[in-house]
């Protein structure tokens, strides 16, 4: 009986601790090893909330920013990026029915809030406010000097009131009035009453301002309120830091970071952590149990403690339990306490969690339960650091569980509202709304309270939210207008290009938007399509020169199939020889690298060191030339370019053994059919269809993989394009497709290729397998694609400040080639930065519209879809989370580059081959670096889907994955009518017609014409491309709605 009881009371809390940690683990950054960078929503853990709630919640949990700063938004207002009508529209929408509520003398709520947004507003920290009041002339002049009439009126009223009070000594009432009267009385004592009336305006201004300030302050001091801040359970460290400015985390982190890095290391250090396999806790205890002398004072007892714990052999959760009790954390506070302890080093904790769960993706996996053990060690060290620090700086020598109450007593006043802050807000709003000091002094108590309440309600975060919505609204209006006008211009949707010369299928990536647009301009008789860049071929791939299989498909899919690349039979001998040579060179290089870090490397570095000057100087000063030379020499050891894909499987089941590699004909058929039906390419095939996968390669860039294809899970999509082309060319597949009603003409040939988005190079696969009859066409296509990539480079270069604006297309290509090879280049490309739109629909609806590399373009033909919209559903199931994730990651990394992003790249230091730290001992930095996002506009992704609102509504209802993002406003949603230019946008669960702000779009002869000489974001424009040139101008005027 007794035994049973003790079991319960022992077992229960431990399970609870484990649950708490598992729960808190969801808050950790989901980023895995940096070599495979997968974009995801930074606040994934809060996706069940709406976006606006989640950013605030996230900001609270992680100590980050929810939106841009108010200063930034106000700068957007003055630059015209946010227009007054945006603010008004957003505010009206937000307040809905409460907008016109009349709040006594305050006016309507709408006007009160607008006054706070439209006028300069200062809300700064207390210290800054003190400085501001003391050093600026804000107590002498109007904050808004421009509105003279308004200010003159203000002074006039004040003057009348003062003169009245000076002559008629009335009784004082509330404290505000008392303060005002005191001021007036002091004035009377000091100066001659009769001369006051004749003061110049300047002096009246000064006097009015100071009188106003005194009234506001008196009124606020009278209210003496406490903010309703939830008193969340905080860690000892936070309180101790608030009181003493000494940080116990600093002590603990230094040790813990070093140990985490050693524990997780995937191969940088030459000695692995001893006993790593035994887990985090055991290896830590073993390592430090022998520490007997020479230790930092705060962890003098660590050695003894480790020995004790080793003997006790207690589990991680037992240790956590013990420590929580010793720290005096009450059971109700466990979840919060454990989660904030976990988040204190969230980068490292997140990586432990990731490697623990995805051991398949790590070279050296770690045992399960590591995160729990990490928490245990953390609490153990926390306790020691706190004990020492509290004794050292506060002289606290009682048992540690008394520390929390002791600290709390000292910071009891933290929630007290700062009187100056609030007073200054009233001071400001009074000036803008023209409430003179006299009026405020005489206002009733009830109205005064109302004012305070209203001001508090429209807090800084709320104002930023409104600003942000207005910021997004401006862009949304422009986008929807542009698409609506452009696709409506032509009345009925334009037909597809008849008899296209060749067709190109690209990734939906917004970086391919400019590539496709230029191609269509250069070759009007060409058609382009967009589909997720793995082309439906989800596989583990291993190239002829690769060491391992790499998954090439979206992260949510676990591939079942393996594909191998082999050197062609005829080149086998050469291939083998070269592989041997490569291996020898590789081993030698590796040896040299290792040796150079060891004692005996001395001789080596002394001998060959000076030779390193040549590559050093060359690579830094002449990156492109050096790359060329390296390529030249590299040719002798490269895999022969003539290779084959091992794509077809003989055995029943797929796998990686010989014979199991590849796909069956049936599977291939399914893949080809699905992809072609997705993009609506079922008829009108040209003789040549080029499939373009993409990826990116750059040097000195730990975030290199973040530039690769998102649909390939941070891999490079070339092999997928090649595999798809090979499948689609297979006559058996064609036959099977024909039986399913998808007839590909015999003359049609598919060609795989790979687009490097960093240096804009295009590589073609299996060109020698192309029938000779197609060679001429292929050469024509290649020429056009070459021009298109030059222009693509040209358009990209307008964004690079280090590229001169007047570059020729050829020069631009050379510039981007140099960028990709430059060791010093921290911005090899801008990746997904500026992404803001995702169009899912037929290309002809947007063809000829300048989208500024800001739009994902997924091809989808609503006329070929069934009643259930099953094609659209399956497209959106992938596109919404993937593109939304990319967009949100950019949003957060831009909005708070230090908190959500990983700040500037310059001090980054690759650690454990898993991630980067700032310098030699910081938390693992997750998110995107500033250099990647600096030109981004943080707006939520605007989807424009070519379908009917009812259909979209049904898809949302039936797909929880899509619904949570759409309903929570994580993405913005709009539909484009398949038969007209009508656009509906999704708002509060329903589709409402979009109202156009403008009816005409700017026109430009060509893309280059439109963007030349401009570095910033560009508005949309209609590009007169190809056959549409003639009717272009007329149709704009004709069809304006």
């Amino acid at each position, binding site marked *: 009986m007794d035994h049973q009881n003790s079991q319960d009371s022992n077992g229960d809390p431990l399970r609870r601790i484990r649950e708490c940690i598992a729960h808190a683990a969801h808050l950790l950054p989901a980023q895995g090893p940096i070599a495979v960078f997968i974009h995801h929503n930074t606040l994934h853990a809060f996706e069940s909330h709406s976006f606006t709630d989640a950013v605030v919640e996230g900001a609270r949990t992680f100590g980050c920013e929810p939106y841009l700063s108010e200063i930034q938004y106000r700068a957007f207002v003055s630059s015209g990026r946010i227009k007054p009508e945006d603010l008004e529209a957003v505010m009206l929408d937000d307040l809905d029915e409460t907008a016109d509520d009349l709040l006594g003398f305050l006016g309507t709520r709408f006007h009160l809030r607008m006054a706070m947004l439209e006028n300069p507003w200062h809300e700064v920290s207390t210290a800054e406010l003190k400085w501001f009041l003391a050093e600026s002339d804000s107590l002498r002049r109007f904050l808004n000097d421009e509105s003279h009439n308004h200010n003159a009126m203000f002074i006039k009223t004040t003057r009348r009131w003062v003169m009245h009070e000076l002559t008629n000594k009335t009784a004082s009432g509330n404290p505000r009035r008392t303060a005002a009267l005191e001021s007036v009385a002091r004035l009377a004592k000091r100066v001659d009453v009769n001369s006051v009336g004749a003061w110049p305006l300047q002096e009246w201004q000064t006097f009015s301002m100071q009188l106003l300030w005194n009234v506001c302050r008196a009124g606020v001091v009278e209210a003496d309120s406490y903010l309703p801040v939830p008193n969340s359970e905080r860690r000892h460290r936070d309180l101790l830091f608030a009181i003493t400015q000494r940080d116990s985390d600093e002590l603990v982190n230094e040790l813990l970071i070093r140990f985490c890095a050693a524990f997780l290391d995937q191969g940088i250090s030459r000695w692995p952590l001893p006993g790593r396999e035994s887990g985090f806790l055991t290896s830590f205890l073993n390592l430090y149990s022998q520490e007997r002398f020479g230790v930092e004072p705060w962890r003098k007892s660590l050695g003894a403690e480790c020995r004790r714990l080793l003997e006790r052999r207690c589990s991680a959760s037992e240790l956590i339990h013990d420590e929580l009790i010793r720290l005096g954390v009450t059971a109700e506070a466990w979840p919060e306490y454990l989660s904030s302890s976990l988040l204190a080093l969230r980068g490292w904790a997140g990586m432990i969690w990731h490697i623990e769960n995805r051991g398949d993706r790590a070279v050296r996996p770690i045992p399960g339960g590591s995160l729990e053990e990490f928490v245990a060690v953390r609490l153990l060290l926390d306790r020691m650091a706190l004990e020492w620090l509290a004794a050292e700086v506060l002289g606290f020598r009682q048992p540690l569980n008394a520390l929390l109450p002791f600290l709390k007593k000292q910071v009891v006043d933290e929630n007290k509202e700062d009187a100056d802050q609030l007073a200054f807000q009233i001071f400001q709003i009074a000036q803008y709304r023209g409430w003179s000091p006299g009026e405020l002094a005489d206002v009733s108590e009830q109205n005064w309270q109302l004012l305070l309440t209203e001001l508090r309600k429209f807090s800084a975060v709320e104002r930023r939210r409104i600003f942000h919505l207005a910021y997004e609204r401006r862009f949304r209006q422009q986008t929807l207008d542009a698409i609506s006008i452009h696709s409506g211009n032509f009345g009925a949707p334009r037909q597809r290009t008849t008899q296209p010369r060749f067709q190109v299928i690209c990734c939906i990536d917004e970086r391919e938007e400019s590539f496709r647009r230029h191609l269509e301009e250069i070759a009007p008789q060409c058609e382009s399509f967009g589909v997720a860049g793995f082309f439906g071929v989800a596989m583990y791939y291993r190239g002829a020169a690769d060491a391992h299989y790499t998954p090439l498909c979206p992260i949510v899919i676990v591939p079942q199939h393996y594909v191998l690349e082999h050197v062609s039979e005829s080149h086998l001998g050469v291939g083998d020889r070269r592989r041997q040579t490569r291996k020898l060179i590789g081993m030698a290089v590796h040896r040299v690298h290792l040796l150079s870090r060891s004692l005996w490397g001395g001789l080596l570095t002394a001998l060959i060191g000076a030779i390193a000057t040549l590559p050093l100087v060359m690579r830094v000063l002449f990156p492109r030339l050096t790359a060329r030379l390296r390529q030249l020499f590299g040719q002798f050891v490269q895999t022969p370019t003539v290779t084959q894909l091992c794509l077809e499987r003989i055995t029943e089941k797929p796998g990686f053994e010989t014979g199991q590699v590849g796909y069956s004909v049936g599977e291939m058929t399914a893949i080809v059919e699905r992809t072609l039906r997705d993009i609506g390419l079922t008829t009108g095939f040209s003789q040549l269809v080029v499939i373009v996968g993409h990826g990116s*390669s750059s040097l000195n860039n730990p975030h290199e993989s973040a530039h690769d294809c998102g649909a390939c899970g941070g891999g490079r999509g070339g092999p997928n394009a090649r595999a798809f082309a090979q499948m689609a060319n297979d006559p058996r597949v064609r036959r099977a497709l024909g039986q399913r009603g998808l007839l590909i003409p015999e003359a049609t040939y598919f060609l795989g290729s790979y687009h490097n988005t960093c240096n804009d190079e295009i590589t073609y696969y299996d060109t020698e397998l192309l029938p000779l009859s197609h060679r001429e066409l292929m050469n024509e296509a290649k020429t056009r694609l070459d021009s298109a990539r030059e222009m693509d480079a040209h358009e990209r270069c307008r964004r690079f400040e280090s590229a001169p604006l007047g570059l020729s297309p050829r020069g631009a290509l050379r510039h981007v080639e140099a960028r990709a090879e430059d060791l010093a280049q921290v911005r090899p490309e801008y990746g997904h930065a500026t992404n803001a739109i995702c169009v899912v629909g037929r290309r002809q609806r947007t063809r000829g519209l300048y989208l500024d590399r800001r739009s994902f373009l997924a091809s989808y033909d609503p006329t070929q879809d069934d009643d259930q919209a099953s094609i659209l559903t399956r497209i959106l199931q992938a596109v919404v989370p993937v593109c939304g994730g990319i967009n949100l990651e950019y949003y957060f990394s831009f909005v708070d580059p230090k908190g959500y992003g990983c700040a500037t790249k310059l001090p980054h230091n690759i650690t454990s081959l898993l991630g980067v730290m700032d310098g030699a001992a910081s938390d693992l930095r997750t998110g995107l670096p500033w250099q990647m996002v600096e030109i981004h506009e943080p707006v939520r992704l605007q989807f424009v889907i070519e379908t009917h609102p009812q259909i979209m509504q049904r898809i949302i209802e039936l797909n929880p994955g899509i619904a949570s993002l759409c309903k929570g406003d994580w993405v913005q949603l709009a539909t484009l009518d398949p038969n007209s230019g009508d656009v509906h946008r999704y708002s509060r669960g329903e589709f409402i017609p979009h109202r156009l702000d403008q009816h005409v779009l700017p026109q430009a002869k060509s893309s280059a014409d439109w963007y030349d000489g401009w570095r910033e974001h560009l508005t949309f424009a209609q590009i007169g491309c190809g056959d549409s040139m003639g009717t272009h101008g007329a149709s704009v005027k004709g069809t304006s709605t």
Partner: protein
Amino acid sequence: MTMEFMMPLIGAAMLGLPAILILWIGLPMLLQHPWSEQIVSRSVFLVVWLGLGLSCLAATIMIATGTTQSNVSLGSWYSIPSVELDFKLDLILDGLSLTFVIMSFVLCGTISAFATKYLHKELGFQRFFLLFAMFLTGIVMAALAGTIELLFVGWELVGLSSALLVAFFHERLGPVKNGLRVWAVYRVADAAFLAAAATMHHMVGHGDFAALMPGETWPNAVSVLTQEQAIWVGLLLLLAAMGKSALVPFSGWLPRAMEGPTPSSAIFYGALSVHLGAYLLLRISPILQQSTLVCLVIIGVGATTALFAAITARVQSDIKSALSFASLTQVGLIVIEIGLGWELVALIHIVGHACFRTLQLLRAPTLLHDYHTLENAVGGHLTHLSKHGISGSSGSAVLYRWGLERGYLDFALNRFFVNPVLGFFRRCHRVEQAWANWCRSGSRATSEGIPSTTTSAPVDLFEELP
């Protein structure tokens, strides 16, 4: 004839150009109108390559005329003939100084070209290059210095700019703290240096290298100091070099210095700063060779450092720390070579190592890319781990922990040096306060009641009125 005329000119230009660069970049910054990125990078480029050209020219002239050493006098700083005090502005151009200067210019030139792109659009771009110019001036001055005083000035400039570059990201706490730590260690080294200079002046009345080590050219010169004098000067200068080159027990600051942007880590801790201590030892090696004791101590320090760093480097799991300790290993070896009297070997080693390590550090961010390439070439995971790994026995765990904790050197420094010093000054402070309180206790009445000027009080309405 021409040479006597040319050399001072070249020497002055080599030294003057970077110094002018400091003003050229710094003054506009002071006036709140910094130059654009382009102007800054072009002027740095110009100065560095001009300097390189000049130093190569000097070397060519010397080789052509068969001179092995050329002393250039740029005048005297301060001189009291009656007491034989003389502070001269002398430069030494010889194999040692020119090699070091040419290497410095090549590396600085490359790094500045690198940093121009790397720091593009960074807020502290101008500040970086201001510190860079200061560093360049310092390193050139230290290398060319013909007197101990001039060397000290260069030494200080290098120290100051390095510490400020560690703290380059001064909006974060970590870099600032670490910069301060580096600066503090440097100060200790500086104090030793200054003491050595004073001792030298005390002994022979000047700090002129040419006169201290007359006759043959470096490294074959013979010092005029007696053995006893050499011990003192040698040990003090060794202490100075230990601080600057992060030798044991001062090694703790080296990984901390990696907080700055990659190019500054590369140039300072990979290449130049860390070798400056070794350069100092090389410069005065004839003095060191006077005393076997000093040589033994130097070998001891070098060996300890090399061993310590070699073990520590094996344990580091981030690339910059691993490289910085690898650097230190080599610096330790170089110091051993100096102790053994192999000056030429040491010089070649410095040059080779500096160039090699700079390239490695600049390429540090590309590690993942390189790893991938290597794995593909080798056709499997890089397997060094299993081969060289140490087993889980307790003996190796001790060594591992020792490496992970970086030899507990920081702790030792704190415990045996920093804390006692701090304690001493705290005590002084307390005594002073007690004294001040005692003095003030008589006039307490007047010192109380000073109003605090916060805005919480109502504003005095009359301060502005007539």
